[in-house]
């Protein structure tokens, strides 16, 4: 086996084991599942004789009004057209995604600073095998959580005669690949900086920037804000994982499966490109802080 691949696999096993014996991952999962429960339970309470009416539940009223105000009534209608699960998927996924992404970025910066990364590279490992190991760990933990979440929502659905609609499944798949791209950006931020604080600032700054541009071009607020966001979006979209996520979902709405999978493939390609740039960066900057 190629030496880098071997080193990656050895390090990945340790990272996976470390995550599985640490409380953080389980706590993040629990937070996600509790959020899922609250959202599903709230939805059930907001159903009357004519269907889902978000004004019937306080939490949903707040959510509904905020979303309508920001993105319009059509957005909210589509979000809940198949039930609560699409919205629940995104919200319940966030705690684990944030935990894995931020902890990996933090860890990378810390290990670089205290010399752990350097220590590993005294042997056959290098910076690239190090971050690939972290990525593999994050991908596996994400997949595990998505399966857990899927099971949880399926059971919650069974108990209340709710079903997981087609949009839920398409979004589940695309969310998995979106998370890989986000982890890749985390690695990129870590390879650029020398310590945890800077790495987290760069990473969160990048992700927030992508989110703001996306939301800005998506909002119903007219005039300057949206126009500016639209211009920026046109430039940024090629490197934003959210753009490819949105693209894939649009195609699935159209029933265009070929383009949906191309959207997924582009998301994966973006991840590969970002990882490759990270590899070059770490090779140039070295593993010492």
């Amino acid at each position: 086996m190629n030496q880098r691949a071997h080193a990656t696999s050895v390090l990945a096993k340790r990272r996976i084991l470390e995550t599985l014996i640490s409380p953080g991952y389980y706590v993040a999962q629990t937070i996600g599942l509790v959020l899922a429960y609250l959202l599903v339970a709230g939805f059930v309470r907001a159903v009357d004789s004519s269907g889902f009416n978000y004004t019937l539940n306080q939490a949903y009223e707040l959510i509904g009004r905020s979303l309508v105000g920001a993105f319009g009534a059509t957005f909210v209608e589509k979000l809940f057209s198949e039930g609560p699960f699409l919205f629940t998927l995104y919200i319940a996924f966030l705690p684990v995604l944030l935990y894995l992404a931020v902890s990996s970025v933090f860890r990378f910066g810390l290990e670089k600073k205290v010399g752990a990364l350097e220590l590993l590279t005294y042997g056959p490992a290098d910076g690239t095998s190090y971050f690939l190991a972290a990525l593999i760990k994050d991908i596996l933990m994400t997949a595990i959580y998505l399966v857990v979440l899927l099971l949880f929502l399926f059971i919650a659905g069974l108990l209340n005669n709710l079903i997981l609609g087609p949009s839920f499944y398409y979004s589940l798949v695309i969310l998995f690949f979106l998370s890989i791209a986000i982890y890749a950006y985390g690695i990129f931020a870590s390879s650029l900086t020398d310590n945890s604080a800077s790495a987290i600032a760069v990473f969160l700054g990048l992700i927030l920037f992508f989110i703001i541009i996306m939301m800005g071009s998506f909002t119903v607020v007219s005039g300057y804000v949206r126009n500016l966001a639209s211009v920026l979006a046109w430039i940024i979209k090629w490197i934003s994982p959210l753009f490819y996520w949105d693209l894939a979902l649009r195609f699935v709405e159209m029933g265009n499966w070929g383009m949906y999978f191309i959207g997924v493939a582009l998301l994966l390609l973006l991840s590969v490109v970002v990882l490759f740039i990270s590899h070059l960066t770490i090779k140039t900057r070295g593993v010492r802080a």
Partner: protein
Amino acid sequence: MIQTRNLTKRYGSFTAVDTVNLNIPAGEIYGFLGPNGAGKTSTIMMLLGIVKPTAGEIRLFDEPYSSKRLDLRRRIGMVPEKHPVGMWTWMTAGEYLQMFAELFSLEEANRRIDHLLERVGLAEVKNKKFSEFSRGMLQKLSFVRALLHDPDILFLDEPISGLDPFGVKQIRDLILEENREGRTIFISSHILSEMEKVCQRVAIIFGGKLMAEDQMKSLLTTLAKDREIHVDLEELPAELIAKVKKLKFVQDAIGAEKTLIVKVPKTGDYRKELSKYLIDQNLVPLSIQEKSLSLEEAFVTITKENINLFAGIGGEK
């Protein structure tokens, strides 16, 4: 075994290592001395392949060396100054070593780990989380990690820094033992007293330049230029010091309460002459002792002010 030619490292306009030439044969314990910031660590990092040289060439095992030469990197072990703080705290010592054994694809890894732990006296704590280890234990564990894959060259960066005297002795014994087994050992340190006890040859680096390189015995002889004679008197007349300074063999003299301290050349025994002089001055020496200038006192930290002392030793190669 280890050769460098015009090895240079620049960070922007700052030159950390400036045309360093080394030639270390196999089986030697080689000391690399210098004050903090002299370029020792940068040199080691280049020798390990962690940092890319700006210029120059490195040869290990008579072959050109770079970070891509994994086959050569597998024959090197490194003990850093400090174990990374807070890292892998969830692992036991055994699991930690197992990870490195796997990285090197070692066969019969468990046997090797047990053997090495036994050697350094850590066998009983194999299943203990090494976050609970003391500094000395961590350093020994680091040694074990570096020796796992049976390297031909061992790099040690400040191996005794921060250790207590017992720990220092343990590490020293370990170094000598490994050298007896044929390993080439490259030690970087600013503590000359320990280097004296283990190194066979030393190089001195300052400001990125290699100032000198010599056998340890020659180096000690050069360093120990002065000796002192301490004479305890009943009383120390004020004019005595000026008079003593005029003696031929006296380099300098000072008084400390009722003790006369006289600096004399390192060769020759001047106690008799001094004693005779003092008696002639109607003074009664209560005790007379010769003190060689302690290496620890003078050189426990090689400061920049002292570095010129070494400039004439051996010369640049």
